């Protein structure tokens, strides 16, 4: 009888460990912040890139039904590849407001970048030391966040926007 109890315990252990490893294998080990969708953005004030006296805060964004916040820099090559989608979004969909946040960049380089490729943004803010990016949960650029009027994150795009994500944004703001 004792032996059978021991066997049951050992068998339970094996099952338990297999379950633990099976769960461990199912977990995605690649870190991303996509699971932060649904969080609200708060307590920020963004100074305009070209004018230190102009700024926007969460109050201004609450007026928009949807806002796409895009982190970019002139030194960031993938930012160039996604720029055409931002321009399309700005030209074709007036309901969505696009806020650009220039990340750890030189002001002149950023302005030249927008002059060269076009300016899709309704407001361009400056984040010269990168601290603002932490408030938005950014860990690399380009990254974009789509928020609603409640300032709740409804979509996060880590990396450059592509055609698929562009279509997804249009679908979400319909």
């Amino acid at each position, binding site marked *: 009888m004792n032996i059978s109890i021991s066997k049951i315990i050992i068998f339970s252990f094996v099952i338990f460990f297999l379950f633990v490893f099976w769960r461990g294998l199912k977990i995605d080990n690649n870190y991303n912040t996509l699971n932060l969708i649904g969080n609200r953005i708060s307590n920020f004030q963004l100074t305009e890139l070209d004018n230190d006296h102009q700024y926007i805060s969460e109050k201004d964004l609450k007026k928009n039904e949807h806002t796409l916040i895009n982190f970019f820099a002139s030194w960031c090559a993938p930012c160039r590849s996604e720029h055409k989608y931002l321009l399309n979004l700005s030209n074709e969909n007036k309901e969505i407001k696009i806020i650009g946040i220039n990340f750890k960049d030189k002001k002149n380089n950023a302005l030249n970048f927008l002059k060269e490729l076009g300016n899709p943004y309704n407001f361009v803010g400056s984040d010269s*030391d990168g601290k603002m990016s932490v408030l938005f949960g950014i860990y690399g650029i380009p990254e974009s966040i789509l928020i609603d009027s409640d300032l709740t994150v409804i979509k996060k795009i880590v990396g450059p926007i592509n055609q698929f994500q562009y279509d997804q944004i249009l679908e979400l703001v319909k």
Partner: protein
Amino acid sequence: MKKNFFLFICFILITTFSYSNENQNKLLEVYKNLRCLVCQGQSIADSNSDFAATIKLVVQDQFKEGKKEDEIYEFLISKYGEWIVYQPTFNKNNFLLWALPYVVLIFGGFIIFLVVRKTKHNKVN
């Protein structure tokens, strides 16, 4: 008079130095408990990446504002998720991790008990 003034200056310098040293150590402890999200197996303290530099600035700011260590962790978890801290909090996703040592302890104890009892029983027979 000059001697007193010299002693006073020394006192101020030593106090300031030890205070800033203490703060640096506290900051270093916080950096060590934060994971660099863009590096391979490095903490914020070990990394020189752009991301680590930014997080260090934010931690310094919050420290100056008088925020406690736990409050700083809570803020960063709200922005980046639990992955950013090395010591995760107890939740439904990691309950097995926390419970496993206790489960092993209880079951191990039970097995030892059975084995000892069986050995004693065999000796008596």
